[in-house]
């Protein structure tokens, strides 16, 4: 009993704060999306109108595209970068420091940097002009505010490759330096040692990191704000626009969008928790 009181005192404030704010926010959003608060005509009409709106569906598809492509590219490059950084080469320390420094840079700064680098009047366009490839800014391919969201994806890749790389390096450190040599002395080639020994043990960490990246790229606001096209716009922009619409009738729809995104997040949460929380039973895989 005493031990229980102690645990309650230690945990209570944090759990109450996070639980109150998170569950309060989600609960209110749910009630408002169902038009239960203020009580109008309760029901799923907000969801129906959201899911019937071509604009919202296009935004949903765009955000899926952004999150999926960013996550896949970042995961692949991070795997390569982690394998690179665990080996010795001149300048390795400097690169490792740069990778860590990137963590500290806010996404909005990265987005503006990418904008000034690859927009039609950006540094790359100027280089293309100097090389005689284009004569005017409009001839440079549109990489920002473009339908394929290339600038947004580039920003996420730039920010998240270091993030996943550091997760993988931390995991490699706990694995120790000898598993590779063990595999090699059992006859595995360099590639086989990676494919059959290192990669399977990195996959859970890689997937857990990728789930966080996907969630972030799906739900972040400021990167598409700087680099996104007007139509379709990324889902977070769309949700915020409905929310701040002068027509208050749009609000339930905004809350419906946020609940739909939360449902997607619940799936990601289940995946992430399965990968990082200690399991009680043992899995067979």
């Amino acid at each position, binding site marked *: 009993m005493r031990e229980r009181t102690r645990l309650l005192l230690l945990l209570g404030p944090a759990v109450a704060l996070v639980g109150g704010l998170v569950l309060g926010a989600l609960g209110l959003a749910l009630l408002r999306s169902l038009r239960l608060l203020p009580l109008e005509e309760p029901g799923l009409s907000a969801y129906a109108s959201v899911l019937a709106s071509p604009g919202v569906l296009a935004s949903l598809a765009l955000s899926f595209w952004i999150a999926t492509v960013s996550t896949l590219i970042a995961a692949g490059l991070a795997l390569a970068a982690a394998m690179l950084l665990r080996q010795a080469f001149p300048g390795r320390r400097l690169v490792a420091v740069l990778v860590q420094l990137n963590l500290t840079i806010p996404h*909005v700064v990265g987005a503006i940097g990418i904008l000034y680098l690859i927009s039609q009047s950006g540094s790359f366009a100027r280089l293309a002009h100097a090389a005689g490839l284009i004569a005017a800014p409009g001839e440079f391919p549109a990489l920002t505010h473009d339908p394929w969201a290339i600038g947004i994806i580039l920003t996420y890749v730039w920010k998240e490759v270091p993030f996943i790389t550091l997760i993988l390096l931390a995991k490699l450190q706990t694995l120790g330096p000898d598993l590779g040599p063990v595999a090699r002395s059992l006859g595995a080639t360099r590639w086989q040692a990676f494919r059959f020994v290192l990669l399977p043990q990195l996959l859970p960490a890689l997937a857990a990191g990728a789930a966080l990246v996907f969630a972030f790229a799906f739900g972040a606001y400021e990167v598409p704000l700087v680099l996104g096209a007007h139509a379709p716009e990324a889902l977070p922009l769309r949700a915020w626009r409905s929310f701040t619409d002068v027509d208050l009738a749009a609000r339930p729809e905004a809350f419906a969008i946020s609940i739909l995104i939360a449902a997607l997040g619940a799936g990601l949460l289940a995946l992430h928790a399965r990968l990082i929380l200690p399991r009680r039973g043992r899995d067979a895989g």
Partner: protein
Amino acid sequence: MRAERLRLLAGLALALALVLPLLPLALWSLAHGWRFPDLLPQAWSLRAWGVASSAGVLGSLGLTLGIAAATTALAALVGLPAGRALGLHDFPGKRAVLLLLLVPAVLPGIALVLGLHDLFLRLGLTGSTHGVILAHLVPVLPYMVLVMASVFAGFDTRIEAQARSLGAGPVRCFLQVTLPAVLPGLLTGALFAFLVSWSQYLLTLAIGGGRVQTLPLVLYAYVAAGRNDVAGAIAVLYALPGILLLLGFIGRITGRDLGRVLRP
């Protein structure tokens, strides 16, 4: 040797890619007009930095620093005991608590912001600095708790028992034995907690309601206005504290510390 040269090339490419997007920001901040197709500005000027060091922008910098520092301190205060409970003890419902703490990290940001705005509106906390600090605790506190749980999981409570049996009271035991033992993890956690608050955009916009003008909001206003030079200067000003903090820490952060503090 051929392999080593390949690695060197790959390392160079990685380093270049990491630095490249920051270069135009620095150049723009010092440019006096920089028209297409000039590769470099034709004239240099400190005009943008004059704006960036005006009372308005510096006040915004101070406000952002204050919010991040207050959020971090609160998160450490509440998060350290909670991390201890989670790191050292097993109890019914522990998994549920861990799941709850993962929600703000894994849920896409926009999913919580609208509901939080509604909640804070009802509590009368919108449009105020302390409201923004409380809102920043949503992503920051769980993060701090999880970091401290991982720190305490590697903490040997026998050193506390040893200290108590040598005559230290509970307070001295905490200050002179426990705290120094978990301090490196706490500092690394605090550094990254600070950065999580520091880089919040939408949460500040939603809860602050435009009345709490942190640096990222000011920065975007200049981007939207097409003032590339001022935006460059403020972007550099905004990125600098994090870079300096990390550089100050760099020798002390181990791979393991870093492994447990990482969030996108």
